[in-house]
């Protein structure tokens, strides 16, 4: 019998050839031309910055309630570290202009983004001078992305049973209009959504809610696998943020089981987002991780 087509298998991951095997063949025609042009300026040319900001007092002793004041302090640390500005208004205005229409993109299911985080960011943008009407909730299939000029991605840190990790790169899956097309073997294509004309180039800031991440795959929530990491991961490189999130989740899984408990299926969407879709850096050696605050059980 003839081999029908190249199939990516476990062996490709063992050999470290999965990304090569994927090649550019998964790119749709509408994306190929743009990607070829961009190849000369790969994100790997420079290190990506990922901030890990933690505060042991951001959650109460039960782990259920967020101290919004402490959370606000953590976000201020993020903004100062990213912009060099100590004054929050100036810091936010380095990312956004009062003329922007900003879409906030939280995670709705499984490990939803904390409302306190969404509210604080909205309040900060208003305080920086953006009209409240111009700050919109932008998660879901029916969002009018054409009227939105800037996006802030606010995913919750979690593993995912179909894609390995379901955090930053996957956070825009509903923008595709056909999320099932990006599961299974097609999870490699999640990076393509970031190149849709109505999405491309709009993501100015990413803050991952790692206050209480979930390290098991789901698909439904199991409280035994959620733990109080009490952190935010922040930056502008979606791939680097997923790579660092993956490292935290994998380390926690190994710690829980007392043996290696690999995330499965392997989160190939991260490597594909780097090597194929040129969205950022997936390799930890190309990522500068800057930690601020509480360092106990950092898992990095």
């Amino acid at each position, binding site marked *: 019998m003839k081999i029908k087509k190249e199939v990516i*298998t476990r062996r490709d991951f*063992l050999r470290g050839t999965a990304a090569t095997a994927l090649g550019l063949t998964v790119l749709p025609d509408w994306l190929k031309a743009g990607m070829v042009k961009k190849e000369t300026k790969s994100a790997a040319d420079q290190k990506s910055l990922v901030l890990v900001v933690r505060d042991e007092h951001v959650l109460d002793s039960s782990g259920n309630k967020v101290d919004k004041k402490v959370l606000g302090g953590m976000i201020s640390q993020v903004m100062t570290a990213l912009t060099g500005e100590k004054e929050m208004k100036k810091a936010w205005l380095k990312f956004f202009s009062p003329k922007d229409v900003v879409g906030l993109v939280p995670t709705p299911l499984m490990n939803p983004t904390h409302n306190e985080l969404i509210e604080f960011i909205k309040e900060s943008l208003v305080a920086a001078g953006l009209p409240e009407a111009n700050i919109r909730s932008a998660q879901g299939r029916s969002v009018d992305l054409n009227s939105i000029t800037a996006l802030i991605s606010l995913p919750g840190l979690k593993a995912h049973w179909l894609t390995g990790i379901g955090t930053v790169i996957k956070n825009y899956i509903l923008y595709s209009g056909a999320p099932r097309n990006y599961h299974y073997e097609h999870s490699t294509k999640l990076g393509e959504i970031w190149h849709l004309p109505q999405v491309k180039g709009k993501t100015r800031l990413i803050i991952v809610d790692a206050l209480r991440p979930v390290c098991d795959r789901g698909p439904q929530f199991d409280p035994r696998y959620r733990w109080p990491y009490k952190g935010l991961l922040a930056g502008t490189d979606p791939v680097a943020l997923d790579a660092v999130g993956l490292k935290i989740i994998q380390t926690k899984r190994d710690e829980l089981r007392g*043996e290696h408990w690999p995330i*499965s299926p392997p989160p190939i969407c991260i490597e594909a987002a780097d090597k194929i879709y040129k969205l950022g850096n997936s390799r930890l050696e190309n990522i500068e991780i800057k930690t601020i605050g509480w360092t106990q059980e950092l898992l990095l």
Partner: protein
Amino acid sequence: MQSSQEINLPETIDGWQVEGPPLRIDDTTIFDYMDGGGELYLAYKFNSLLVYRYTRGPEEELLVEIYQMETPDEAFGLLSLDWTGEPVTLNSAFPARPENPVCPDYTALYGEGLLRARAGSLYLRILASRETPDVRETILKLGKILAGKSQPQSLPAILDVIIPSTDSDWKIRRDRTVYFHSHLVLNSFYYLSHENILNLNHSTEGLLVCFEKKEQQPGRQPVKLIVIRYPGIQAALAALASFLQSYLPEKADQVDLCPGPGKTGSVRVEDGWLGWRLSSNYLALVFECPGQESVAELLSQLNFP
């Protein structure tokens, strides 16, 4: 056999009040309810889902999900996805069964405010927004109401294919045994390929079983055994061919795939020795063995009908 149609949960229990009539979900609406999570239940043979919400005060919620599956094997499969947690008894009317050598006999597991259980063809999930000792008691009461009328719990017949040898150096990690029909489920435990290279679907039954040495070296990954029952001999043969072509393309041309007596083989790959055994409509694959002799030993513990 108990069905979700016969369920009649109380309107109030321990100060909790049910919120309206239950939500009724079927295979056309499951994605609206749980987004991509619906794929898991469709990967098993899912009929319907009833969702009750209980509240106590403004912040406390109990979510009761009752999945009506086609057969008890499907409910077993869903529970087998995670054998960890505190085993609890929801129906004490039946005598304890002899211990199964391949998987735990638990029918209900509890942990941190989540009860997962099987009761006949029902798979149950009861989740509290916040766990306290009294919440745990209420969850177990609801579980007992739901599981109390169930018949003795059966196990999928495919488990009988594996007969561990007492003389073997290997033992089964019973808490790692998974029953499945879908490559999506298999991949979430042991990744082979994003493609469905074993031709798995609702007409196939699969088991993933982990073996480790009785004197296991620290840090060594268990050996994985996958056993699949296909609906017919041709389907099993086609699956072996598909697997060899995709996973072992360098070996595929050397294997006789003509219909005939059982086929067996082994080869060394990147993560250890890999072996296969095809017998009638059953295909077994073993991965990450330390040597060729361990492939033979583990495959010899299979007793195909």
